[in-house]
């Protein structure tokens, strides 16, 4: 076998391996279930803390977006705070109104996470921020389930977390 043939075979194997390997890694397009993590947004609550304050309840939430398109940020239009006997729903304008501070993650760049009255939480893909909310309601001590509703995606993809108010 001449040198050109050997070089061609080696590089052909490398290219084919790279294409099949990265295709499988990114989309599962060689074997198994097909995936596309950039189709639908998926918000996650990575940290939650709830405390009573003089003027209501302070809720601290770290929120990130781990899936979805890169062209537009994900929205969390409603925050549901619930337990077996009580449910409090904050709509997008209440989320925007009650958010008193936003701390951006050190890796967030020029596109910042934010809140506004029509989208609620606005989270850029890959970024993370800590939202401080003062909710003008005195919640009773106990454990609550937090749910952030993302429109147009199934309920199973909504961000949830458990938090205890002592």
């Amino acid at each position, binding site marked *: 076998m001449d040198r050109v043939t050997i070089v061609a075979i080696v590089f052909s194997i490398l290219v084919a391996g*790279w*294409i099949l390997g*990265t295709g499988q890694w990114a989309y599962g397009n060689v074997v198994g279930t097909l995936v596309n993590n*950039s189709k639908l947004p998926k918000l996650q609550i990575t940290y939650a803390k709830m405390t009573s304050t003089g003027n209501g309840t302070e809720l601290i939430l770290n929120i990130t977006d781990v899936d979805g398109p*890169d062209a537009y940020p994900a929205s969390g239009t409603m925050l549901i705070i619930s337990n077996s006997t009580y449910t409090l729903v904050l709509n997008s304008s209440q989320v925007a109104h009650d958010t008193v501070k936003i701390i951006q993650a050190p890796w967030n*760049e020029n*596109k910042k996470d934010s809140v506004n009255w029509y989208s609620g939480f606005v989270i850029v893909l890959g970024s993370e921020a800590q939202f401080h909310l003062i909710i003008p309601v005195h919640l009773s001590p106990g454990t609550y389930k937090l749910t952030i509703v993302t429109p147009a995606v199934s309920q199973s993809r909504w961000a949830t977390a458990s938090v205890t108010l002592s």
Partner: protein
Amino acid sequence: MSGKELLNPGNSTRLEYLWPVRFAVGWMYLDGGLRKAVLKPAKLDPNSSSFVGGKLVNFLPHAGPFKPFLLMTLENKSLDVTFLTVFSYIELLVGLFLVIGLLSRLASLGALAMAVGFAPAYWLGSTCEDEWQIGALLTAGSITLMLAAPGRVLGLDYFLYKKFGDRPLAKNVPILKWIKLW
């Protein structure tokens, strides 16, 4: 035995036929570099809303083994800006050199490095497998060009090859002696 006699007539492809691939790969990089470094410099300005550093944040969630490097770059603003500026000018030079066929094998190696280095973004493609398809085709195209020395025909490498013959990056250094300039 002359070079002509070594060729198998049924297995010889004229380098002229590679010009479309050389132009396509070259223009992809030249266009990308021009957009950032020349046509809209705000893309490299960290204080601008157009700053492309924000794109690196989008790669993070499924960047796999590249995530620590991305985070380190993003958390160090000056490193981030330097990396993107250098990357953009390399894009521009590699693209220009491929289009005009100058140092085309070395430029193809640069193109290959960028196509592979783009892997953290391969998972992004909300309508189809966008970034992976771009990366895969640029990888294959760059390797094809790197092996074929396409600038020796319809390119400035014609003159370099005629005057200096085959030249590696360094003659007596392992690995570098296999990397050809044109």
